[in-house]
């Protein structure tokens, strides 16, 4: 059952990639043509997986179009493997002057073909454009496939899905720890909403009342969390060393969804102290919060990217849309999306793409949005609903 499900996801990702391919107009659409005409691949399954995942990753990156004609960049080399081991040699040349931009060889276990492809995709992108990629990122998502709400982890292309929790309960709001190794989430598995961290049996927060929205700080020392222990849901920072609590807000209303700034000096979060939920920024030392969102009847689910920009979900004209805000310049832009509801946006590590949930006709799937120009792409869909994606750093 699980194997079929994962295979289904891989298939889906492949078809999504086909839809994304565009006709090459050299230099016209700003994409860099990249050719595999001089790259030889073995017929073993590891090699085939490596090549197809690599090409799909490059197309999905937004910077490349894999093509055999008029390419500006040539990938030269070979990949071969057997049941246990594989070997790949990858060089990247500029077609115009045969300048070598990258040359590496790899020999991982054959079952790591997908992982290697993601790594090579990010390395090629970095060598050619100098920009960070997202191909190696993981997605933590909540899925309803079993009839309960469990935590799952996928590769960002929607492949390699794994069910993480088997609690027969409710999982809300997963967030990665800054080292990308663990996930904090809210679960009712012990009856009351507690915050848990993968790999730890004991909850990381289980005060009386509400414990939710747990997110570990960039330096790993503390956790932002929403608690109602003082009689109302408020934003706190809990030291992960001493367990000591620092209360940041005092509003008599609802606070939710904290997310750290990349430098760990600020938190962005939701508060409805004015009567409607809006996005606020507060210093990690407390003080007066500053409101970021100005319009929309509902502004929720902020995520602060390493690029310094904050994405959040805003109800505009009766639909949930994704907003990108620059907290320094105080500018805000609503991304172009169709009639569906787009919620819970989070930045991919490339600082260009946003992963979010898309809900249409009461079914939810995970989508990739491009903040520059490409159309949305489905990443995880089918076999129940999928929502609340969190992208690993």
């Amino acid at each position, binding site marked *: 059952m699980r194997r079929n499900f994962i295979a289904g996801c891989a298939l889906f990702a492949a078809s999504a990639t086909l839809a994304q391919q565009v006709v090459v107009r050299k230099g016209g659409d700003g994409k860099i043509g990249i050719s595999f005409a001089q790259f030889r691949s073995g017929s073993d399954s590891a090699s085939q997986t490596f090549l197809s995942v690599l090409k799909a990753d490059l197309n999905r990156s937004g910077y490349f179009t894999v093509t055999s004609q008029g390419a500006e960049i040539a990938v030269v080399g070979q990949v071969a493997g057997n049941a246990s081991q594989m070997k790949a040699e990858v060089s990247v040349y500029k077609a115009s002057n045969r300048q070598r931009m990258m040359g590496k060889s790899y020999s991982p276990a054959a079952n790591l073909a997908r992982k290697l492809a993601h790594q090579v995709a990010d390395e090629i992108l970095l060598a050619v454009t100098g920009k960070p990629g997202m191909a190696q990122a993981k997605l933590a998502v909540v899925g309803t496939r079993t009839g309960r709400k469990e935590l799952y982890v996928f590769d960002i292309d929607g492949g390699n899905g794994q069910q993480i929790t088997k609690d027969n309960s409710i999982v809300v709001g997963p967030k990665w720890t800054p080292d990308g190794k663990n996930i904090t989430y809210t679960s009712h598995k012990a009856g009351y909403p507690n915050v848990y961290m993968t790999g730890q049996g004991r909850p990381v927060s289980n005060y009386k009342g509400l414990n939710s*929205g747990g997110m570990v700080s960039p330096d790993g020392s503390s956790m932002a969390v929403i608690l*109602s222990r003082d009689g109302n849901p408020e934003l706190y920072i809990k030291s992960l060393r001493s367990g000591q609590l620092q209360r940041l807000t005092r509003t008599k209303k609802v606070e939710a969804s904290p997310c750290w700034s990349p430098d760990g000096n600020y938190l962005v979060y939701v508060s409805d102290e004015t009567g409607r*939920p809006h996005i606020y920024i507060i210093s990690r030392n407390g003080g007066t919060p500053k409101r970021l969102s100005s319009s929309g009847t509902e502004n929720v689910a902020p995520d602060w990217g390493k690029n310094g920009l904050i994405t959040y979900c805003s109800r505009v004209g009766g639909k949930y849309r994704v907003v990108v805000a620059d907290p320094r310049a105080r500018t805000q832009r609503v991304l172009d999306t169709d009639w569906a509801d787009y919620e819970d946006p989070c930045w991919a590590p490339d600082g260009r793409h946003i992963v979010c949930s898309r809900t249409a006709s009461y079914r939810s799937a995970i989508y990739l949005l491009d903040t520059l120009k490409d159309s949305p792409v489905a990443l995880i869909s089918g076999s129940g609903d999928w929502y609340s994606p969190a992208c690993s750093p």
Partner: protein
Amino acid sequence: MTKKFMKWFLFIAMAGSLVMMSGCRSKNKNNVDMYGSSGMIGDPLIGDVPLDGGFNDGLPMDGDRSLFPPVYFAYDSSQVNPEEAGKVEQVAQHLKKGKGQGVIIEGHTDERGSREYNLALGERRALAVRDFLISLGVNPSAIQTKSLGEEMPENMGHDEAAWRSNRRAVFAIY
């Protein structure tokens, strides 16, 4: 300007703005504004009553939900409406007569909006009912709150009627 002078200046400025803020608040109290008229249950101006310390290990996890009907809420509101107040009074009577050890108030929202925000809003609703029970003389330590956000709808529909019946606080008596 010396540092000391700056400090005093800031202090006076802050005190001034506090006076202005409280002025606005008392004005609001006399109006029928978005929170309803003054003195409403769940009024955000009523002080918070801290949950009685510590962790939730060993708290009762379940109770009898069939004894009392749920309290229903308006959209995005955590205020107990006057027409729902009688339900809370019945629960208070029951507990004060010693017919139950205590109550778990389960706060729920409708499906619209962010799940994390709804989890906090469900807790706020449960706490508003808790504040009301406490004001009626129920011992705070006999009241537990548990938010389920939008995760456990009573009605699986996607229309106004479904949403109305899902915005609720349920009494589980233990």
